[in-house]
């Protein structure tokens, strides 16, 4: 049983799941899929290419799958995916991908607070929290459980690793490795995200290993390539350490300094 307000404009081609509700003055375009139990309140617009999961909450004035903010861009058939259980607060803007068939993706159980902007081709992992007015540039990757503090802009093509936490009102212009705290201006490494990791059930031994790894990267006087080699020798098979090494190897913009 879908529940659509009489003033909402919903395309008959849009695929709406069970119990979906659409509030007053909201608009849903043709090529849209919305999962069961998702609700959309008033004044939101869901454009072509939106694929929204189950149990999402979408509040006032949200714009999903709008065309990317790129000059001279032709409208292409690309997508914006929203995972299950994600909450999107007022005036959030999520743009679809810039190339045909590609997608911008927001994971499951993500909290996007008011005024956040998710640009084209961005990938946001599961359980992330994106606080008020965070402006995320194109092609950025934010991995699972990361938290981005309020009013922080993220430069295009940057990566933020798993369980990382970025402080409020700073600027991300380089890659933030997994499991760390990042802050200050210019952005730098500010320690391990111990509180966050402990909350998510990491053991003291694991925290200890990660501490040692980041000590080698940031405190040993080695450059990143040398540090990587030393970590590979000292911790050859630890899966968490592999995560860190993989992140550094895939980093194109370079990781944040100390």
């Amino acid at each position: 049983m879908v529940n659509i307000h009489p003033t909402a404009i919903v395309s008959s081609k849009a695929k709406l799941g069970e119990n979906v509700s659409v509030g007053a003055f909201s608009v849903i375009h043709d090529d849209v899929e919305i999962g069961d139990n998702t609700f959309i309140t008033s004044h939101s617009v869901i454009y072509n290419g939106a694929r929204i999961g189950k149990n999402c909450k979408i509040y006032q004035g949200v714009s999903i799958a709008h065309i990317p903010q790129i000059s001279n861009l032709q409208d292409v058939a690309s997508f914006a995916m929203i995972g299950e259980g994600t909450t999107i607060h007022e005036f959030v803007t999520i743009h679809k991908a810039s190339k045909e068939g590609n997608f911008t993706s927001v994971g499951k159980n993500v909290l996007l607070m008011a005024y956040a902007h998710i640009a084209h081709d961005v990938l946001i992992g599961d359980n992330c929290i994106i606080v008020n007015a965070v402006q995320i540039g194109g092609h950025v990757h934010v991995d699972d459980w990361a938290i981005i503090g309020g009013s922080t802009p993220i430069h295009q093509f940057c990566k933020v690793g798993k369980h990382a936490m970025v402080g409020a009102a700073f600027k991300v212009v380089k890659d933030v490795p997994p499991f760390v705290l990042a802050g200050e201006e210019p952005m730098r490494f500010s320690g391990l995200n111990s509180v966050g990791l402990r909350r998510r059930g990491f053991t003291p031994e694991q925290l200890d290993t990660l501490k040692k790894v980041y000590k080698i990267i940031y405190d040993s006087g080695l450059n990143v390539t040398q540090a990587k080699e030393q970590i590979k020798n000292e911790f050859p098979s630890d899966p968490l350490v592999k995560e860190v090494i993989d992140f550094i190897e895939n980093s194109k913009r370079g990781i944040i300094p100390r």
Partner: protein
Amino acid sequence: MTRIHPTALVSKKAKLGENVSVGSYSIIHDDVEIGNNTSIGSNSVIYNGARIGKNVTILNSASVSHIPQDKKFHNEYSLLYIGDNSIISDFTTLHRGTEVTGKTKIGKNVIISQYSHVAHDCVISDSVFIGSFVQIGGHVEIDEFSVLEDFTSVHQFCKLGKFITVQTSFKVSMDIPPYVFVGGKPIRFLGLNSELFEKHNFTQKKIDSINLVYDTVYYSGLNFSQAKEKLKNNFPDDEVAIEVLEFLNKSTRGIVGK
């Protein structure tokens, strides 16, 4: 005589005063009270729990009394007050309280500019000016006649004294005592807020005692607890000293440094 645009959706249960006007496509929910002569622009939504005073101006697309972005919030009953003669600009988001205090309070003659956010349980006193894109976290207290310039962000639980100015685009993460001018990254004391003293016709006697008090707090080389002792001993009857002392005593996040 209320004037409601034919496309606006106003609940019959909402209590609207005399001469209230509601613009096109705006929505007013059930549990709302709006005072005389208040006007609401188009596309705005006033959610349950809003208590809006007289002569208030709410412009377009505002979201007033929406639910808090807080994990401890479980749909409990709470309120949002807006005092008489306040101006709420376009796209602002004002959230109602949580169970902790039960209310968010915005005083009289307050101006909140576009894209600004006032989170749950905040107390904004009378005649405060809030610039564009200011993001204010939960439980923040801002005392009367203070000015937050554009792009300021305020960390949750911060307390801001009266007659202060925060310079454009900085982050407030500590408590700010009354009568000062702050800015920089990290935020710090930059001097006394003489511009506001002039504007509000402070007597020379009051300005002198503000000078003396802040000489002790910031220029005497003492730490804050020593400065508090000295204030208590040297200015036992001084109005300003008592005010500042009270503020220093109730500060929970620490006072901004120099």
